């Protein structure tokens, strides 16, 4: 897999608290059996009116944010439904990272499994980046995210550190076939199963 250590680009501001995965990827786009075509469904009700016409009030429809690779959101970003379609849609649309004061738990795992970088920063730091993102045409709105160093660096040289567990970092930078890694522990899994079900036969329900 290709290495992903640096994410660069403009950021689009979407400071909505508790932005849930129903809004990120609405229900009508979930009736699929593959991952294709989710870019069109991303944040659909925010991007389009009831007739499918792009809404001017959505930053993603403004040409100055075209090609933005980072999304800046509100706290508890990605809460609600476990649908991984939300992560696939964000990536298909072109986002490589989301910055927010906090992320919902299932969304976080889904993002890591797909190498969508989630950058959790203090509210004041997020607000500073939100201000910068409001003038994306200015040179100082360009962001660099150094995954190895766990830092968001602005064009003016401001740097903000973010947490990222060692395993998650490796998942983002290198990509990881977690199933292959787990199957390397197959003897342990089998041994566990034997003991577990012989000691707790009630746990075998079907």
């Amino acid at each position: 897999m290709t290495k992903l250590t640096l994410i660069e680009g403009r950021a689009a501001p979407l400071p909505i608290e508790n932005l849930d995965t129903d809004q990120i990827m609405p229900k009508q786009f979930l009736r699929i059996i593959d991952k294709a075509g989710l870019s069109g469904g991303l944040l659909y009700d925010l991007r389009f009116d009831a007739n499918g016409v792009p809404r001017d009030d959505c930053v993603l429809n403004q040409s100055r944010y075209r090609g933005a690779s980072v999304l800046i959101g509100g706290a508890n970003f990605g809460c609600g439904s476990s649908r991984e379609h939300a992560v696939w849609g964000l990536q298909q649309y072109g986002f490589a990272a989301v910055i927010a004061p906090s992320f919902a738990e299932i969304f976080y795992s889904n993002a890591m499994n797909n190498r969508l970088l989630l950058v959790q920063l203090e509210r004041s730091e997020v607000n500073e980046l939100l201000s910068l993102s409001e003038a994306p045409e200015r040179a100082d709105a360009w962001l660099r995210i150094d995954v190895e160093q766990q830092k968001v660096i602005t064009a003016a040289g401001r740097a903000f550190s973010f947490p990222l567990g060692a395993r998650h970092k490796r998942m983002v930078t290198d990509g990881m076939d977690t199933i292959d890694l787990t199957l390397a522990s197959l003897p342990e899994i089998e041994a566990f199963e034997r003991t577990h079900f012989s000691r707790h036969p009630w746990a075998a329900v079907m």
Partner: protein
Amino acid sequence: MSNRTLYQKLVDSHTVTSIDEQNVLLYADLHLMNEYTSPQAFAALEAKRRAVRRPRQQLAVVSHIIPTHAETPRVIRDVASLLQANNLARNCEREGIRLLAANDPLQGIEHIVAPELGLIRPGMVVLCGDSHTTTYGALGALGFGIGTSEVEHVLATQTLVYRLARTMRIVVDGVLPYGTASKDLILWIISRIGAQGARGYAVEFAGSAIGALSAEARMTLCNMTVEAGARAALIAPDATTFEYVRRHALSLDETAWRNALVDWRELISDEGAVFDAEFRFDAHEVAPFVTWGTSPDQAMAVDAQVPDEAGQATPEAAAALRRALGYMGLSAHQPIAGTPIDRVFIGSCTNGRIEDLRIVAGLVRGHHVAPQVRAMVVPGSGSVRRQAEAEGLAAILTEAGFEWREPGCSMCLAMNDDVLSDGERCASTTNRNFEGRQGRGGRTHLMSPAMAAAAALTGCITDVRTLEPHHD
């Protein structure tokens, strides 16, 4: 190890191996699937020529996309939805996985079906590609939702790479007041601690008010704990739990049952166990609750007034309130009671159980749904539907003007054709009042089954305590 929490005991007993300080390889006793979060997992397995490791520890249910019109046999007319149902059938057939398909008499919502089939028992780890898997904590099982990549991992290995949660205890003592139920309690708790108040935590509920709840009421409570951001919800199994499991887990014979009880009685947090966070609440303070906004924590007592920006703790909360009131078509300071509604939805994995339908039928018997209101009852499973018919509840509901429908997730998330129109206001027993969740522009007010029944009869949001008793 005499100071472990219940959560730690469940994790320890299912840890195959420790991966690092934050992660363990966690074993899943049971994995449940639906038609919309599993297809890409099966496809990825197939592409990599991997097999399902333990087919007999999987159960699949067609639940989210299925239409709920009362017709026999049930037909899925939407082409994309039918493809999902057929694809699930194909995947299950090929891998030898038990499937409850559209016309299976046991079909229903996964979180209603699994406990009633006796598949959820104390001490288990149960995973599902659905966030409301936290429901199973009501029976002392560790359940939580996973994404599709993780579904693939579970299918291939029967394990999950699991990031350990912090622990929180929420103690609720006292007696729930007249007119309230566990739905009011959880809405009240979420409004207190916030939509991310339990984010990162496995929450254990304790206290006399929790002990007094039925097993089904506990399921409502644990089901919605995920709306506070929790990674799991747990209640230590007790006599109520054992009685429920005994009634449903018919495959356990007397010896197996006695041995199981010995194990299950250990499933408590030890005296010296330390939680990372703790809340204490008094059940007396709970009132019939209803959401006014677009996040489950934007909830209030039904006899209160819609809050204003000045009352919000942070600028972000004030902005969220402004946005929510605009979407909901409400104003600060208006009483929420009396707000006219267009639709009523009774059902979902939160409140689609037989106990919920008994409460609704008890309130609406001899009355009629307000003429301008369309009210639907969608039982959580085929078993619930048949039970309600046998008890005469279905007849009461139909006579009162409710649509009596076939089981499924239905308008909880509106993946099928049960959808709110733009601007329609709905009294709903579901779990999420997000913008557009039940249909674009739809306005959802979450509440208990009793409150939804009251709203159906009066045509507006109504304090169930003020409803006049029926005349027999």
